[in-house]
């Protein structure tokens, strides 16, 4: 028995790095465009594909899955091989993973601007792509787990544990949150409704942050920071402790996204408490990372890689303190729906994810190309510009967030709203948005500098495609008599088979069990709440397609400032037929849950054509295509039957009459419009949208407000 010679696959790392650079650029560019659109809506170019509502999910998906995702894979493939002293289990699986993932991203880039979206945040991609994600992710998992099993280094370094946690949890999250019934090739309805959907979505959403943006990066930090600093982790013991504490606590913090919502009180408080408890393990990680540099601070001054990493870890600490603070009810009441949340997100994203990625790239590329970094000076410059970018991004957002919140809540001494017109708050924060986009521009500039720096480095170096290595195999000298019969039986079965079958069973079981279970429990609690009419269903789908929920919320919170402005606060029972829910998470524009009946049809007709005619100074883009494109009537019967499967109580056989009701309602609206002088075609999208908007919030009988 001898030492085995093998090689590390650097090529796959290279591929992922290239992809991350390309898509990082794209994602950040889209972000910058969005930021500018918020004060210069002309940048929408008047076409449907580039409106804010359509490209916001493109930005989030690109930066999360295309940029961060590819970086994660690059880092994991690099470090896992070296930590296990083994080449990736199967080169084909690696390649499949890579090409599969990029295909998914391209699919996203095509479908999202086309409006093919599910509206659920960070899970907008429609069902065929969801399936593709599951398959590619599983391939990644198999490749990774088999590599770990076939490793030559007995001890599994803590980073490997983080990678495993990422894989297992993201699988479960993705599967559970993406359970949807397809309507057409690129349209589906979520199996959950209303409040339940909100809970599942944010159980997923927060854990996506935890297990996609945090745990893999912690794993990367535990590998790349010591390597870059050439010092061991401050306390390996602490890292083990921190890992297990984090894993057990993280999963329950989700409800903090739903405070003051229609979620039951006790569920909200649960989220708050666990979010606070999360500070401890998170800071354990931060301290461990920073203290690793104890005694090497002089090197931080000169080395850009260490600079990036230090700021990254610090940003992690800041974000994981701010997060729990934001989950406190009092703070949340101010921050929710405002730019403050955007600031919080971007500290984590630009600081923790971005900077750690940059540090890692600057370290890996010279090594794989066997050369020095082309310009350390340029890297240092990148650091400073990037940092400035983060500052110019977040400070204006804090400012505008608090400004928004305070303005929304302010009452005159007489007890009426100080700023009854939402538009006033929008206009007030435009300067901060200009500044924020400057911050984003700086950050993007730094990124471009990095691309240039790395590109020249790559050109000047020689790529080591397969890095030679050698190590002895793990010798398992088994003591045959120690193990029992059961163990020996189990061990004869190939492990991957067991794994795969478990996963399949899980998915199948979940898909079967959950809908039926939930359907039974979806009993409406408010008698007056009725399902959407067929026309309204079409309108809702258009609302989703245009991404309206990216700027408008549909959740009136039980604060006097909101009930004065919007009407009765939102009840859980009102949402029982919302597949998916549309609470939204940001108010760039006003809340729409009680918009029904507030304005006449003509108002909406003119507003959608050009918002500035009804709201001077508005930053909402015009939607002229709604007046020419027609909704697909043929689809109506299918929509009804899918909804019924999901538990919405349409009568049996309603499919046959659905379109009749639809035509009636459409004609009613278009006649009303014609009478007011508007040229309205009852078959066009705008009619359906108006029908939906006029329905919102009217299930509860309450006095209509005299609003503008």
């Amino acid at each position: 028995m001898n030492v085995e010679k093998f090689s590390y696959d650097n090529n796959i790392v290279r591929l992922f790095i290239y992809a991350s650079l390309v898509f990082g650029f794209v994602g950040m560019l889209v972000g910058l465009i969005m930021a500018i659109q918020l004060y210069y809506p002309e940048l929408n170019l008047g076409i449907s594909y580039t409106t804010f509502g359509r490209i916001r999910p493109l930005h989030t998906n690109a930066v999360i899955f295309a940029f961060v995702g590819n970086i994660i894979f690059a880092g994991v493939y690099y470090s896992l091989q070296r930590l296990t002293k083994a080449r990736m289990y199967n080169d084909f699986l690696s390649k499949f993973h890579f090409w599969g993932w990029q295909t998914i991203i391209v699919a996203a880039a095509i479908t999202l601007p086309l409006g093919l979206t599910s509206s659920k945040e960070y899970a907008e991609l429609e069902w065929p792509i969801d399936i593709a994600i599951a398959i590619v992710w599983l391939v990644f998992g198999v490749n990774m787990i088999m590599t770990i099993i076939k490793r030559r280094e007995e001890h599994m370094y803590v980073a490997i544990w983080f990678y495993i946690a990422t894989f297992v949890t993201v699988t479960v999250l993705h599967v559970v949150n993406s359970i949807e019934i397809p309507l057409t090739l690129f349209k589906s309805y979520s199996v959950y409704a209303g409040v339940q959907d909100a809970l599942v979505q944010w159980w997923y959403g927060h854990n996506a942050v935890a297990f996609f943006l945090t745990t893999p990066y912690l794993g990367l930090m535990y590998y790349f920071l010591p390597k870059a600093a050439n010092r061991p982790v401050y306390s390996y013991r602490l890292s083990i402790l921190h890992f297990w504490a984090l894993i057990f606590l993280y999963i329950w913090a989700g409800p903090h996204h739903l405070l003051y919502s229609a979620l039951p009180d006790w569920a909200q408080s649960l989220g708050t408490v666990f979010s606070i408890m999360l500070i401890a393990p998170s800071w354990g990680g931060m301290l461990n990372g920073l203290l690793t540099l104890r005694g090497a601070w002089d090197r931080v001054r000169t080395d850009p890689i260490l600079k990036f990493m230090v700021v990254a870890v610090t940003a992690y600490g800041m974000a994981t303190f701010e997060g729990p603070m934001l989950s406190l009810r009092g703070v949340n009441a101010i921050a929710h729906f405002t730019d403050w949340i955007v600031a919080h997100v971007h500290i984590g994203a630009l600081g923790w994810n971005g900077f750690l990625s940059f540090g890692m790239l600057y370290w890996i590329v010279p090594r794989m190309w066997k050369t020095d970094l082309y310009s350390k000076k340029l890297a240092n410059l990148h650091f400073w510009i990037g940092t400035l970018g983060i500052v110019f991004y977040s400070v204006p957002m804090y400012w505008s967030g608090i400004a928004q919140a305070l303005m929304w809540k302010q009452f005159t001494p007489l007890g009426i709203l100080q700023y009854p017109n939402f538009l006033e708050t929008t206009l007030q924060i435009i300067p901060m948005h200009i500044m924020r986009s400057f911050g984003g521009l700086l950050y993007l500039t730094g990124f471009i500098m990095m691309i240039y720096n790395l590109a020249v480095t790559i050109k000047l170096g020689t790529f080591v495609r397969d890095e030679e290595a050698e190590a002895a195999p793990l010798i398992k000298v088994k003591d045959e008599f120690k193990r029992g019969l059961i163990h020996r039986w189990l061990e004869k079965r190939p492990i991957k088979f067991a794994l795969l079958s478990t996963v399949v069973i899980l998915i199948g079981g979940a898909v079967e069990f959950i809908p039926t279970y939930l359907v039974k429990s979806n009993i409406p609690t408010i008698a007056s709440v009725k399902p959407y009419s067929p026309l309204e269903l079409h309108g809702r789908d258009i609302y989703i397609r245009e991404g309206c929920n990216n700027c408008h919320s549909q959740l009136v919170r039980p604060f006097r400032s909101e009930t004065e402005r919007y009407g009765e606060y939102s009840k859980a029972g009102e949402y029982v037929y919302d597949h998916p829910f549309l609470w939204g998470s940001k108010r760039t524009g006003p809340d729409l849950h009680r918009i029904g009946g507030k304005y006449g049809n003509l108002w909406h007709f003119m507003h959608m054509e050009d918002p500035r005619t009804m709201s001077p100074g508005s930053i909402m883009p015009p939607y002229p295509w709604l007046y020419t494109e027609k909704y697909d009537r043929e689809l109506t019967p299918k929509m009804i039957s899918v909804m019924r499967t999901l538990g919405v109580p349409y009568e049996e056989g309603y499919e046959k009459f659905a379109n009749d009701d639809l035509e009636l309602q459409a004609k009613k609206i278009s006649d009303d419009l014609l009478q007011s002088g508007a040229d309205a075609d009852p078959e066009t999208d705008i009619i359906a949208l108006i029908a939906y908007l006029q329905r919102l919030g009217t299930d509860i009988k309450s006095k209509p407000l005299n609003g503008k």
Partner: protein
Amino acid sequence: MCTYYSISDAPGINKKDENKRNYDFLDDPDIKTKFVDISDDRISKAIFSIPQMHCSSCIWILENLNRLDNDILSSQVNFLQKSLSVTYNNKTSLKKIVTLLDSIGYEPLLNLEEKRDSKNSSELRKLYYKIGIAGFCFGNIMMLSFPEYLSISPQDSAGLDTLFNYLNILLSIPVFFYSGSEYLISAYKSLKNKIVNIDVPIALGIIVLFLRSLVEIIFFSNAGYLDSMTGLVFFLLLGKLFQTKTYDALNFERNYKSYFPLGITIRKNNSETTIPVEKIEVGDRLIIRNGELIPVDSVLIKGNGTIDYSFVTGEALPVKKEQGEIIYAGGKQTGGAIEIESIKEISQSYLTRLWNNKIFSKQKEMNSISLANYISKYFTFIVLGLAIVSSGIWMFYDTNTAMNVFTAILIVACPCALALSTPFTSGNALRIMGRNNFYLRNVDLIEELTKITDIVFDKTGTLTISGKANIKYEGMELTTKKKFLIKSAVRNSTHPLSKMIFDYLEGHYIIIEKFEEIAGEGIYAEINRSTIKLGSLLLVNKEKFDISGGNSVVHCSINDEYIGKFIINNFYRENLTNLAKELKSKYNIHVLSGDNKSEHENLKRFFGNDSIYLFDQSPQDKLDYIAALQNADKKVLMMGDGLNDAGALRQSDIGISISEDKSNFSPSCDGILEAKSFDLFTKFLNFAIYSKKIIIASFIISFVYNFFGLYFAISGNLTPILAAILMPISSISIVIFTTTGTNLYAKKRGLI
């Protein structure tokens, strides 16, 4: 190998001994089993202890042995344990590997001691399982219990609250039956022996919590107290983990065999080879080189024997042996190589018989009970009494509340503080002491330290520094003649200082007749009509002897003309004056020495006239003396070094072995004090006393919590949420209090 030097700044070991060692004895199959962990027909795995590893370069080179020898497949270091595990294919051998390690400066510790069993690590693993399960269940139960606290009402929960409660029961079962089992079992055993130890109130609490919760959930559809129960078990186990501080590289279980080399050079038919020491037969001819241990009783055949028995008997001066004389096992040869013939087997030799004293055969018992156990006795009875009385009174008013109150009192009267104070305080103290090079075997000893009344010191090697001392001469220039006179004069003296002066001076000497040694003063010699006086100033010049801070000064006059003085530094340990002063004010001091009376006066200058000094003590004498003290109800701490103190160390209540190097210390001790921290000894004793005060203070704090809790319990108002708040708060505050308290004290005293 290039990376070896770039990793650390001080890589490598300096090889002291240029002699190539012979490892033939490693081919012996019995010897092999000591090191080989697993073996099949193709590969084997061996584990070595290599105390020399000290940096990352050491780790690198030891884990890359396969680059030096292709047949070594892999090697893995456990740095804290200073061990190396080597996997190799059977084309190479244990002997080749050890030879390789020796050649790069990392020769493993090869001695007769049995392979350390991995009992320690499996105990620790069991604790991890228990904590893992307790933590998992506790966390989930906590999450599932929150809705109840956050006032979920039955109508809007749609049966969720019932579901949560039953899930809680399910989750608490492994905690009760597995994680908490040791408390239940220990309480049961203790009660069977009619003793109430600390685990009794804990077990009572756990059982009542569990049962009451079951009743509440199943029969009354209320939430139970399962989060408090699992939380209690979790915190207790954490406390246990905290106090299980194992010093990975120190093995307190070692015995005398660790001094024996594994192999011995034997002469057979004119050639030399090595055999395992245990295979020595009567009549074998053995070669013993300078510094090597005599393993068996034998007769000197060839060479000059100068045997150093200080380790075994405490005699400071080496003993000269002539051809034909018997040499007993345990001594070390300090001259050139000698050849001996064994007359007994190893098991019959002196050293082994020394160890056969029955004191070593049984487990050392802790004779006194800890404070926590002492209080728990009263605690349990008081709580039970309170429970019975209160529920009795309530019976007259409302039977339901009576039951409620009975169990509530047992639940809330949390012995958490009792159970957590000691582990956290003592555990922390143990760690701090460890950082200051004082290593105690376990946490219970911290409390034992506070009960000590008498301290017994060995002299040679404990109060004095063994090894070469530092001699300076001040005075008239020493001509060859003067050196000749002085050297001859000291030759006859048995005083250790005389030997040092003898070694220090070069030149010839003769054996003289006219010689007188005056105890406590010095020596007087006559050579060819010259008179030489050496010693105290009184003798030499009629002034007082001068010992300042560990220095000994030997004045010299020839023909009554003052020549000069020899200043011998570090004969006594530095700071002994201060230490002695501090100690003798609080404790009774005894000095037992295997040496002769020559240092009596000097010792009196340190420890005063009230302390007791005994000389020419054999190892058995020391042991008996301590036993006598204990019979007079004294609590004895003994500090010694060397194998000759092993019995006494074992007999004493606390035996501290002082050592220059922590990998080599006297077996059967309870603690190791590295010589460099000798002057901190009083600080450690005071620290232990302070820790006890902290423990008592934390008991008082816990009584306050209990008071509050009892108020609610007795009035029938102990809701689950109240219990769930009180328990963790009291536990966490105790932990914070004790840890901060000990840390602050240590910082103030310069121990951190």
